[in-house]
């Protein structure tokens, strides 16, 4: 049975560990800054439209997430603390805690990318902020849920660095297409109702991914 107090303890452990080691935050911050700077250098004085901006926004989020989110499980395997966790908490509690940490990290990441885009790109104007906000929230949850179960899988593999984006890309294609479409609508100023279809897909993706992950995680984690 899932227990909120135990899940909170897993989250507190990861947050405290992250604040001391900066395994993920530094990787995410470095990637966001270099990716946005590279885009700026490439564009020079050009002003990209909503479709390009939306695509570039989620490309930065995708690759930044790939560089940071896998750490939740990979660092436990690398440090040898995976067995300690297995002997301390149930797989359901552990997955819920790690998922919560990754959701928080992804939301932090999207907030940072949004702030940088608003500063760097004059044409990045959130004409329908409510659509953008909902897209970012459900997009972050979707990203985090897919990334968390994939992180658990690749943490058990030898070639972790290369395997993660390769495995994640096909799983995240439906999510990427949907968040790009919804973000484009938000930048173009279409009303929230116009993005209803995209948001429904996002909610469905999150539910399927989280439910599937909970069912699968014990098999991935236990042996």
């Amino acid at each position, binding site marked *: 049975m899932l*227990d909120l*107090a*135990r899940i909170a*303890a*897993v989250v*507190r*452990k990861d947050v*405290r*560990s992250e604040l*001391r*080691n900066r395994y993920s935050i530094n990787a995410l911050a470095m990637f966001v800054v270099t990716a946005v700077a590279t885009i700026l250098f490439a564009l020079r004085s050009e002003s990209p439209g909503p479709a390009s901006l939306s695509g570039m926004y989620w490309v930065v989020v995708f690759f930044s997430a790939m560089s940071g989110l896998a750490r939740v499980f990979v660092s436990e395997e690398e*440090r*040898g*603390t995976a*067995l*300690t*966790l*297995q*002997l*301390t*908490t*149930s*797989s*359901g*509690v552990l997955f819920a805690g790690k998922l919560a940490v990754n959701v928080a990290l992804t939301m932090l990441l999207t907030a940072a990318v949004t702030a940088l885009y608003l500063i760097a790109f004059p044409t990045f104007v959130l004409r329908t902020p409510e659509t953008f906000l909902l897209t970012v929230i459900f997009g972050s949850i979707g990203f985090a849920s897919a990334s968390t179960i994939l992180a658990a899988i690749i943490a058990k593999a030898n070639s972790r660095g290369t395997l993660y984006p390769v495995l994640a890309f096909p799983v995240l294609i439906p999510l990427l297409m949907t968040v790009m479409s919804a973000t484009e609508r938000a930048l173009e100023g279409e009303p929230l109702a116009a993005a209803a279809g995209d948001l429904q897909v996002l909610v469905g993706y999150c539910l399927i991914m989280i439910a599937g992950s909970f069912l699968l995680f*014990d098999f991935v984690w*236990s*042996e």
Partner: protein
Amino acid sequence: MNHVRLKLTDLQKRYNRRTIFQQIGADVTGPGSLAIVGRNGSGKSTLAKIIAGVLSPTSGSVHLEVGGSEIKREVRHRSIGFVAPYLTLYDEFTAVENIVILESMRNGRAPAQADVEAWLEEMGLAARRHERVGTFSSGMKQRVKYATALIHRPALLILDEPTANLDEDGARFVEKVVQRQSGSGIVVVATNESHEAAWCRSRIELGTR
């Protein structure tokens, strides 16, 4: 302490085509103790992990009963303590933090501060309780592992190579822990050392078939 029973039935473990052990059985009722002995590579640690519920046997079953109720594998960690040299603590946390964090994850609440202090005092680590475990020697880390394993007063205590990395004082402490646990619950000791195996009342010998 509640009534405790550990029953191993016809356990077998295979990795690929290699059989590590087979037809392993035991029935221990607490208060009691069980030694797992055998040469290197005979599967002592594997059997200890199977009993702890972190590895599955290829066939056979582990039945742990506490207070008349069967403890399912998913929640077995709440009723056991496990100490082994290959178990790793969080280097970035202090000794107190390791104990509090691991116990909070196990039981959903932090242990009483007085209990934590008392265990660290008994382990001889009171003076360094607020130092990061990463700065500790392997013997000191082993002592912290004992504190994390014992603080919730487990019904079943599993010790794999119990005195590894410990000095004479530490080894005497472990013997005391084994005596105390075998008087209140069940202790399983996986060891190569004959004098450590002699602490236990029953034994499983691996690698004899």
